[in-house]
């Protein structure tokens, strides 16, 4: 049991950070599922959500600033799609990808411009920032809340996708735009809904992630954004359960590597994993199986 006592705090931290990666990864994977697009701006939306929270909480109480942060982040995700992707619906895939990269740089530079590149103090959110003793370790409550909240949100999302009309439309659109149109589905509304859900989860992930850190800078979101992307590819891009499992595996692995004293290699591990999975099983753990039959 001694080894378990030693590793327990790391596993706990790993599940927590994994949950945060998962909330971002779902946005990548859902957009890919529908548009076959890697939304490079998604990681930046996550970081912008951190700054929105900084500025909102400076003037408003938390019970207003938290929901407002979520709403504004959702609005940003929706706007990014309308401005940068919707006009390119009929364009070649490469054009929309370049537009996504452009959007990513635009958001990054806007953050530099607005903040002057200075680190901004992230507000302390009472309760989830409080410390708690769990078995052999002391941690913040957010560490326990994150995996639970992640699982609850993922279950709700799966219900939405498999048991509602909107979810059915999303699955149809992800397969075949034109036939979906012939059913009377308005493709653009379904795509917007996907970006709204993805940005909502990224906003929640951002609140949980940054409450672990004292400050936010324009670049600090790049790493979790990138790791969430790796998680989505590892799990099989397009698959929501895949993204969640991929994110949890990456979160826990990183922390176990730290526990073994190789902290320097924890980031390298994630990207080595990406290279390995792309070589060994490019469709990821739960990648799309093609079941076309003529």
């Amino acid at each position: 049991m001694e080894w378990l006592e030693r590793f327990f705090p790391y596993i706990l931290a790993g599940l927590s950070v994994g949950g945060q990666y998962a909330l971002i990864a779902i946005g990548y994977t859902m957009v890919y599922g529908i548009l076959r697009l890697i939304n490079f701006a998604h990681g930046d939306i996550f970081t912008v959500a951190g700054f929105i929270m900084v500025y909102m909480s400076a003037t408003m109480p938390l019970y207003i600033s938290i929901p407002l942060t979520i709403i504004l982040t959702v609005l940003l995700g929706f706007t990014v799609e309308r401005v940068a992707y919707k006009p390119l619906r009929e364009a070649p895939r490469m054009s929309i990808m370049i537009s996504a990269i452009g959007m990513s740089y635009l958001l990054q530079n806007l953050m530099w411009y607005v903040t002057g590149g200075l680190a901004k103090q992230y507000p302390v959110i009472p309760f989830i920032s409080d410390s708690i003793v769990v078995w052999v370790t002391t941690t913040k409550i957010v560490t326990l809340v994150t995996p639970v909240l992640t699982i609850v949100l993922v279950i709700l999302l799966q219900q939405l996708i498999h048991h509602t009309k909107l979810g059915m439309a999303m699955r149809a659109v992800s397969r075949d735009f034109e036939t979906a149109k012939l059913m009377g589905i308005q493709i653009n509304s379904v795509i917007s809904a996907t970006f709204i859900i993805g940005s909502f989860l990224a906003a929640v992930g951002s609140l949980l992630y940054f409450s672990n850190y004292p400050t936010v800078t324009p670049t600090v979101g790049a790493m979790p954004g990138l790791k969430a992307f790796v998680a989505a590819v590892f799990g099989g891009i397009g698959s929501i359960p895949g993204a969640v499992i991929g994110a949890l595996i990456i979160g826990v692995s990183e922390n176990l590597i730290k526990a073994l004293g190789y902290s320097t290699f924890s980031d390298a591990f994630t990207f080595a994993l990406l290279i390995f999975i792309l070589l060994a099983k490019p469709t990821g753990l739960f990648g799309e199986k093609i079941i076309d039959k003529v």
Partner: protein
Amino acid sequence: MSLLTVTDLKVSYGGIEALKSISFDVRKGQIVTLIGANGAGKSTTLRAISGLVPVIGGSINFDGREITSLDTSKIVSEGIVMVPEGRKVFPNLSVLENLKIGAYLRTNADEISASIEYVYERFPRLKERHWQMAGTLSGGEQQMLAVGRALMARPKLLMMDEPSLGLAPLVVKDIFRIIHRLRDEGITILLIEQNANAALRAADYGYVLETGRITMEGEGATLLNDPKVRDAYLGHAKGKKSSEPEVK
């Protein structure tokens, strides 16, 4: 009385004129067919009516209303529903979900359930397999599902793009039996077929499309016996030449 009137319809893709001004009528309660070779513009015509491709000239009038260049979902809600070429069922949705998504624009849950029962009655096989993913059905079953899915929208005009393509002869016979039955139940049908023989036999009225123009029209039986049509599309079924080997 005509349900659909197409007047001087022009469509072009990337600088190529796919339809050079075509006009035709679909009368209420009839099966009307467009026949023609590959690339004559048959599919383009249906896609233009459904609003899937932009129309650059002419007009489409349905049930007394101008529907040219409306949004596809608006056209579906007017009552024009298409069974696309190659069936295009959603392979990742169950059979039941495929039917439900056909009723996407309808809101009354009781009426939708009644429509599902109506489709199951016509295609008992779909009821047996309602839980199965549509991608696992056979080609014939997928065609039944595609027709059932279209019926879920309660069409006034059902447009069918090559429903017999790639199906076994027995299944093709079934499909044409269904088409007749739907007509008898009051659904108007616009049918596109490469299998001109079967299409003209089934149809009340037909049009012959050649490289973006309509070159001939008439009742199904009349066209079927027209020597020019026989020559071009029916492979001289009873002519002398059929017994001779083809020499180029």
